[in-house]
């Protein structure tokens, strides 16, 4: 069959189905996390990625394993795309010793040295300047990695966004800024918060290359990211990508979503589900069929369910770990007493 040779956006069937799987893993993982929260197994704040899967999975496909990803508190999807073990990720959400951050971080503070998923920051926009620092290391230490930093439309309102973009251009840093514009920062609609309707004039203000993409289309995202990553890697220049997307759920599990109508959210789910759109594209191109999709769906669901089992059966952190890892030098604690 010729079907094997068909490609989309330069990706073959296997790559395309992997992309499909990544999105489904994100979707099922988040559904399981939501259940865990409802059952009281997960505490604190839980921000789900549901609806935005095409962004994280599309960008990630343009990355090498050595490339760095830095994100916000809405980072489970980014972590899964980067290859972080779903078991260790779920265990972190459950606050268990086997979690990626030993249970000390929680949902908002995912970090995996192994996968170069360098946080999980919960102060909005803090990750942008931090990403500039990583990119500076890449440049000065001549390590050829690209730094991708994800943030929301709300982060654009903070001074840190502007300071980081300016620095990235002035210092010619190999960084890709990915704004996931899901139209709201908590209850604040983007059109009430931004003086302009797209990020293009902001990029212009910092003399930065810019691309706006449909964040519900994984292949559009992938192609924009590919260009930006290439630019960063080959010419050490930053890019700003604005991916227009929508979060299908509330800001966090605690959000009563009073600021938007049920119809609006339903409309997005019905017409713009990134997974459905991608399946349609693959089907229309004659690359994959319902059976392929079902296989991925089953596998993703199974992995997510296994992650829950793993997390739930993992031990709690040791109480003594409460004061471990604060500093490299434990004598840096404030009141070091001389042994007598």
């Amino acid at each position, binding site marked *: 069959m010729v079907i094997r040779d068909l490609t989309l956006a330069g990706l073959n069937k296997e790559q395309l189905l992997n992309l499909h799987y990544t999105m489904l893993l994100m979707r099922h993982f988040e559904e399981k996390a939501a259940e865990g929260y409802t059952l009281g197994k997960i*505490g604190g*704040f839980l921000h789900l990625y549901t609806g935005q899967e095409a962004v994280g999975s599309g960008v990630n496909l343009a990355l090498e394993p050595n490339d760095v990803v830095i994100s916000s508190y809405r980072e489970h999807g980014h972590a899964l795309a980067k290859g972080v073990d779903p078991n260790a990720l779920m265990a972190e959400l459950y*606050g268990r010793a086997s979690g990626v951050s030993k249970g*000390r971080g929680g949902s908002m503070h995912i970090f995996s040295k192994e996968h170069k998923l360098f946080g999980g920051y919960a102060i909005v926009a803090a990750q942008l300047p931090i990403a500039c620092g990583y990119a500076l290391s890449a440049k000065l230490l001549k390590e050829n990695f690209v730094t991708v930093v994800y943030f929301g439309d709300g982060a654009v309102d903070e001074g840190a966004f502007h300071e980081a973009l300016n620095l990235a251009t002035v210092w010619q840093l190999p960084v890709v800024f990915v704004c996931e514009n899901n139209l709201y920062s908590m209850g604040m609609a983007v059109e009430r918060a931004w003086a302009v309707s797209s990020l293009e004039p902001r990029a212009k203000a910092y003399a930065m290359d810019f691309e706006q993409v449909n964040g519900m289309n994984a292949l559009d995202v992938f192609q924009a990211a590919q260009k930006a990553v290439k630019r960063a890697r080959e010419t050490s220049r930053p890019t700003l990508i604005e991916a227009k997307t929508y979060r299908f759920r509330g800001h966090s599990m605690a959000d009563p979503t009073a600021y938007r109508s049920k119809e609006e959210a339903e409309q997005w789910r019905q017409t713009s589900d990134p997974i459905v759109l991608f399946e349609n594209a693959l089907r229309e191109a004659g690359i994959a069929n319902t059976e392929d999709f079902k296989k991925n769906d089953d596998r993703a669901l199974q992995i997510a369910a296994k992650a829950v089992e793993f997390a739930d059966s993992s031990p*709690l*952190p040791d109480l003594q770990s409460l004061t471990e890892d604060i500093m490299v030098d434990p004598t840096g604690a404030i009141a070091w007493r001389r042994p007598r």
Partner: protein
Amino acid sequence: MRVTTYREALREAMREEMQRDERVIIIGEDIDAYGGTYAVTKGLAEEFGRDRVRDTPLAEGVIAGAAVGAAMSGLRPVAEIMTINFSLLASDQIINTAAKVRYMFGGQTNVPVVFRMPAGGGAQRGAQHSQMLETMYAHVPGLKVVMPATPYDAKGMLKSAIRDEDPVLLIEHELLYGVRGEVPDIGEEYTVPLNRGDIKREGTDVTLVTFSRAVHLCLQAAEELAHEGISAEVVDLRCIRPIDLDLVLDSVKKTNRAVVVEEGWKYYGAGQGIAAMIYEYGFDDLDAPIGHVTGVDAPAPYAKNLEKAAFPTHTDIVAAVKKITPVRSGR
């Protein structure tokens, strides 16, 4: 009197002050469309209009700076900072502007601004969302730092803060919003001064000096101690800058023992400052070293069991009291 929540009490204070004075406005993130992050401002935009209750973009620096400028030019802004953790982005304007301009401009200008923000941990929100940080602001001359523990005090002190001519930080606690308590009926005007503490429980053997949510832990501890023959007096400072020092010293004069109780970190903090003042001005009245119950000297962990161990409990207070208080015989 009727019973209402800390959250409602704060809202009533703002409503009443907005009715009373047209110059009072509220600005902050998600105070309107979202319904208020902790629902404190819920309904106020509908009631007073969106000129006076303004959702801002996500930018604490400009919220604080604009509030300060507005206060210097005739408005009476109440700026809501979503949590004290994010106030670090506003702290430049609070500390470098609000606290300074009256002094450095030779007394020519006032900054009648209120910054409301919740602090505290205990809801598994992790290291960047569970801090107290009141210490940082209480350190700064030019600011008032108010930390009410009950609905009555929250309402009365927020009203005073809004009428105050100086910059006031009203630091709430994330776990107090649902706490219920007696508050005078609507229409029954009252305020609580910003420089007076309050004895929340009288006692004779030991003074527990505290503020914010820790007041409730102290009351619980005092109840338990009573069963063991120790009579603890609970002094709720309500405001840590200025501090009602005489209230504390008079209590210590009576009990001769003190334990300072706070949720924040131990070192260089508000509690050590309070203890130092007791030592400085009340040393002769002390029969034992001052006890100090605090949060663990570590960033807040997420895991439930670790978090439980990180914050002080009434049991810790009971233990600290027993360490310095002999149980009197014959009781």
